[in-house]
């Protein structure tokens, strides 16, 4: 049991703080237009990769740093604390990259991993479909085997950053035999292939970071199957568990920066001459938001341990995911309630700040949906942790 950073973790922290002090990244000053923002995010990831802060724990032979898993967690927390923007290739780094490392061939890893790390090639994921959301195993996108390749047809949705992606990890049905989740495979689709069509979807925040993806007889070479045919479900579950298990620590740091920010803004603003922060009810609400974030941190520390020691992310990643969504939604709603009428005052110099809190609140509603809904996480716990009976 050890909470304090080791000497090497501490020197890594200091090194990153030096890097961040020189770079001064600021998620708030990113360009507004999506195209320009993507360019800036790519450049930022590339600078961080050059500095050794991306794929720190990924194997050296594929361009990673070959370091212990704990180091990447230290790095991600430092970046979040500094308010740095997210990496452009978040899907490649958190979702498909780990799957390639775990299930891919050496050839696939050599081909794809270095470009994921350097943000040379952006990845997206083609998992959900309009009629296969929580019930992912009911997906209908098909990959038919024809000669030396597969031909894929179907429709995918919630494809983050699809419009910028070079590659997509697509879950498609390759067999109807046996249980339905056994007939699913994961294929690596070149987004430049004929038959690929994207339609951006505008989210409730006004941004369009998601796309619908239409696949119409898209030809995929056989060597682009990830793992074995029929491994798709297993890979997707591994991937989503990984995403849930490791995202929480940097996420809680980001939530903490937001909490500090709402405290600061509440101390600056008044309603009818009364400082917002002096309201005892507001103070208690902020304390509850703080407790939610801190307990997320404590729980993620305990459950991430196995992963850091080289093991897999277990079913407890579902409890982390539930706490993460709860903490984010509580914080966002608390900010909305505490800042209250001041969000409507329309002071010119407060427009950006107000927009941030509205956007944070709106997007927080997604937290109990993406990466497996709250209800799916509870099902996972009921099945895999509590072993409760089925029908």
């Amino acid at each position: 049991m050890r909470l304090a950073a080791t000497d090497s973790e501490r020197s890594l922290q200091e090194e990153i703080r030096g890097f961040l002090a020189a770079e001064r990244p600021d998620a708030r000053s990113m360009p507004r237009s999506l195209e320009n923002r993507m360019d800036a995010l790519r450049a930022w990831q590339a600078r961080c990769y050059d500095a050794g802060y991306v794929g720190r724990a990924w194997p050296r032979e594929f361009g990673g740093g070959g370091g212990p898993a704990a180091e990447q967690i230290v790095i991600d927390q430092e970046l979040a604390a500094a308010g740095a923007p997210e990496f452009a290739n978040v899907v490649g780094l958190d979702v498909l990259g780990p799957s390639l490392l775990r299930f891919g061939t050496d050839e696939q890893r050599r081909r794809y991993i270095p470009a994921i790390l350097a943000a040379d090639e952006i990845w997206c994921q083609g998992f959900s479909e309009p009629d296969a959301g929580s019930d992912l195993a009911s997906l209908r996108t098909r990959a038919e085997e024809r000669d030396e390749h597969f031909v894929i047809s179907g429709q995918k949705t919630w494809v983050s950053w699809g419009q910028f992606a070079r590659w997509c990890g697509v879950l498609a049905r390759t067999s109807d035999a046996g249980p339905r989740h056994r007939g699913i495979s994961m294929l690596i689709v070149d987004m430049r292939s004929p038959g690929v069509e994207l339609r951006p979807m505008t989210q409730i925040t006004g941004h369009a970071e998601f796309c619908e993806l239409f696949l119409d007889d898209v030809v995929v070479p056989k060597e682009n199957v990830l793992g074995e045919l029929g491994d798709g479900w297993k890979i997707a579950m591994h991937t989503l568990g990984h995403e849930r298990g490791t995202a929480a620590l940097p996420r809680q740091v980001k939530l903490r920066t937001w909490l500090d920010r709402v405290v600061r803004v509440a101390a600056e603003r008044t309603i009818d001459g009364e400082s917002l922060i002096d309201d005892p009810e507001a103070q208690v609400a902020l304390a509850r938001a703080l407790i939610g974030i801190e307990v997320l941190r404590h729980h993620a520390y305990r459950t991430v341990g196995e992963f850091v020691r080289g093991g897999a992310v277990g079913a407890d990643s579902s409890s982390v995911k539930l706490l993460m969504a709860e903490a984010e939604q509580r914080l966002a709603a608390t900010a909305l309630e505490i800042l209250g009428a001041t969000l409507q005052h329309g002071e010119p110099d407060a427009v950006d700040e107000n927009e941030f809190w509205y956007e944070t609140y709106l997007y927080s509603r997604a937290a109990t949906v993406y990466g497996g809904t709250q209800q799916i996480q509870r099902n996972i716990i009921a099945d895999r942790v509590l072993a409760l009976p089925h029908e």
Partner: protein
Amino acid sequence: MDLELSDEQTWLSESVETLLARDPEHRRVWASLVEFGALSVGRDGGLGAVELCLIARALGKHLAPVPYLGSAALRFAVEPLGADFGEDAAALAVLEPGSGWAATSPRTAIEPAANGGVVTGRKAAVEHADSVERLAVVAAGARGPVLAIVESGAPGVALAPQPALDPTAPMYVVDLVEAPVQTDPLGGETIDRIMTIGALLAAAEAVGAAGRLIEDACGYAGERRQFGRTIGSFQALRHLLADMYVRHASSWSSVLYAAAALDEDADDAGRTAAIAKAYVSRAAREVAHGAMQVFGGIAVTAEHPAHRFLRRIVVREQQFGDAAHHERALGRALAASAIPEAVSR
């Protein structure tokens, strides 16, 4: 960063569990705990906050009626001073009629006397006061609150049982009239340490009791049949039990983290313990409510054990500051953290 228990800690936890399971009637649990070394607090090979919390969790799971919390908390708090209480059991006398758990301005007061000092005042909710050798009394000294150690059988000490929610944690009103103080009164830092470790031990016990309720509720949900199905197959109950699991698992994470912070002398150990206590205070009771819902009507009968665990959970919730107490303090601290910056603008 590593919250994994060491082999020794796992062994300790399992040993205490075995010790308690072997004695379901609790005939000689206290003696067994003392023999086992559950009071051997100390840095060099002794028990730290994490180990004490592991023991407290087991006691909560088995609803052991022993004066462990006070005895362990006192030893942990005075450990830096090197005070030794041998095998004596101790009870904490913090609360007073009309006071809260902040313990900042007690009416009970200590006065100098020929042989050291005497303490006078009334304390409430002194748990297990009838079965301990020592009372650790928070009293007003000349320069702020101090901790006075009084022999429970000393002249001027009168115990009166008071109604208690949990009969396995009996409570006493203690009247002190110029009761002689045994050692030099201990300073405010010791009181802070008692409140911090006390909050964690209370939370750990509640986690133990809540964990037992989840186990039993899951077992019951797997056997009980209604509408031709085991009730654990109904999604409404599966999700309720999953939520209970999350509350319980995260509660334990928080207690463990805060205990480790205390053992490592982290700067924010007191604040982290307050966060854990605030969280567990609500979460453990939520688990108990959920379990009673799973058990259904039978859990509202006196013969069913659910209410006994609920009672222990509520008692631990109210000691050393409940959720509202800590949330108010944490909120005030957050607000204060923003003020210097606001003023400088």
